């Protein structure tokens, strides 16, 4: 079946999405974003709770706690 996701834009290949954070990083504030998260403050509020869309847990696939400081390029499980 034809799906929209085959478009390269969703994979960040166009380079338009300059967010430094892993695309699987989730926080409460993520759901209020009006665009890509560029700085920590875009994602963190006082609840300070992050999870990974891949594991749906508070740790990533590598067993390390999910946090904007960590969920960036360089972490093994990082997704662009």
């Amino acid at each position, binding site marked *: 079946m034809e799906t929209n*996701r085959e478009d390269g834009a969703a994979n960040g290949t166009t380079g338009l999405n300059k967010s430094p954070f892993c695309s699987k990083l989730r926080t409460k504030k993520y759901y209020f974003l*009006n665009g890509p998260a560029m700085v920590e403050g875009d994602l963190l509020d006082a609840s300070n709770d992050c999870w990974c869309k891949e594991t749906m847990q508070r740790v990533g696939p590598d067993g390390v*706690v999910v946090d904007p400081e960590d969920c960036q390029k360089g972490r093994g499980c990082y997704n662009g």
Partner: protein
Amino acid sequence: MSTTPQQNADELAWPAPEKRRSIGKDTRRIDGPAKVTGMARYSHDVRLPGMVYARFVTCALPAAAIELDLTAALAVPGVVEVVRVVGDSTLYLGQPIAAVTAETPEAAAEGARAVAVTLTELPWAVTAEQSLAPDAPKVNPRGNIGRERTQEEGDIEAGFAASDAIVEATYTIPIQHHSCLETHGMVVDYRGGDSAVIHGSVQGTFALLDGPPDSLGLDASMVEGDVQHMGGGFGSKFGIGIEGKIACEIAKRLGRPVHLMMDRETEFHASGNRSGNSVTIKAGASKDGVIQALVADSNKLGGLSGGSYAGLPYVYSVANFSSTSRSVYTNTDGNRAFRAPGHPQASFGMESLIDELAYAIGKDLVEMRLANLPDDEQHSVWRRQLRRVADEIGWNEHPYKSAPGPHKVEGGREYVEGIGFGISVWGGGGYPSCEVEARVDREGSLIVSVGVQDLGTGSRTLVAMVAADEFGLEVHQVTARIGNTRFGNGVMSGGSVTTASLAPAVKDASNKMRAALIALVATNTGKDASALSFADGGVIVGDGLRVSWRDACALCPAGGLTTHGVFQKALQSSGVHGAQAARVRIDLVTGEVKVLKMVAIHDMGIALNPMAVRSQIQGAMVQAVSYALFEERLIDADLGIALNPNFESYRLANVHSIPEMTVIIDDEDGRGVIGIGEPPAIPGIGAIAGAIQNACGVRVRDMPLSPTKILIGLEELRRS
């Protein structure tokens, strides 16, 4: 036909109070009848042909290597499949390790019990002490301390030098569970093929599209999320969670609808919590009540999450301070947002400290607070609010203002009363996310649709109210459709932003529809549109001529009219102040605390539905009473086992815990719509703790404020 008529800018303002029809007036929930008759269908209630029931098996230790023998579970009659949902080891107490799927809930429960689990214990830490010990196991491979931050202002040494009294104390607040009555989970309606419907108990309808399509291997466009009613979230239901992911995976494998709602014990283990906190404060005040210096050091206990904390000094203005906080990771479920994340924790420490300093210098508790709220524009709101609740609670007539009441049973006295105070701050306000569709057909139906969910705050009713007011219709004449991803984007319910995000967009869509209908009437009557207006459900044309709603709608194109509304900044603002006071009665024989009365005042702009606003504020105060007096997650720090993952020993307040409540809606400022979900949940615990000390002299510094602790405190006072 979709129309985008020009709108008159000054129409995008909330009408003056005398021109409001249902908004600003107590309005019944439109889904009330469905809820009181049991007809309201929650995710938990969805029943589908061929549906299977899934249940988690959880880890009994904080960290363990896991071996599973599924033979016995698979042999349980009715069990369809059993799968491991964890790698080799677990990282938190109660982590789901297997999922059992069966034809009936009974078989799923028996199957879950029959999964033979061999746990080989791994090193773990469940308390801050354990996590910070030199030889502590690495809870997080990056280190057990995260996000250490210090904020400093002024000259602390000079502040202490200027102080006449210094208080040093540690205030601790335990981990609280959201305790949603409907547990986390979803029903996945997938029967093979390329589409699915997800019924989820979440606080953001569109979260149901964030994960499930991947787990189901479907294109997101073919997945529909639905949350018509949900049984409480309080901040714990933003994502779909492990339960949502696993439910979708089971459905994909089996090609059958799956019902996976956590059982109560798993809910306690693995659906988040309010993080605990321990703050050590040293602070000094001069005789005039001004806090001259404050040094605070706080450990946030958010399990595998960062921990919520609003920081000190909370609300009050302190010139010289240093405030440090850090996350201390433990092998327990991560905290999640919980009604004003981090604020009750900070408020409890700050208000307690102020009380203790006030008694140390012999200052009236209200005067002490005023001394630390400067007379500037923002703080003066709190000054006014604090005075108001003090009047309302009976502070002026109260005998114990600058020293606590008596602690001895004597002369027939077995009870003593005290009063305490707390103040709060919150943001609220709207986000530009809601996309609302208004639709009118030739038969006169008015349908307003938006994908927003209703957590019990009354958002469904609000949609109908705001739209009805725009046309001068009755609320019941509007059909509000919400809670489905087929409608326009909503907003997650969090941070007290739902109303301020939603109402302006509903008003915008309705306003555009109003203009479109007026244009039709104008065209057909030959009048100038600017002279026409809606009133009492019809269009006033002038010269005593009124076109009824039905007649106006009959002018629509055959396919009806559709308008789209978006966020309108001018209709909302943010910033909620608040003050609360509590009066308690202490039983000097048993240590029992009866909260007799609470008073709340919050400025939250226009109260669109005052009845729902009062319910929200009272509900928040009830939660504060419950947290203050009862709630506490217990884990045996030595064995690492959970002690109270149930509603018997994790106590929630019941009817007998509830004080008389006075709610003052402080809407004098006319700041548009703001939102009131979190603010009233903040000041109550500090006020109750303060009232206890005020009544009998016992300062309980570690919540909950149990009678057992008060009794020990009374014994100590009597001995000293």
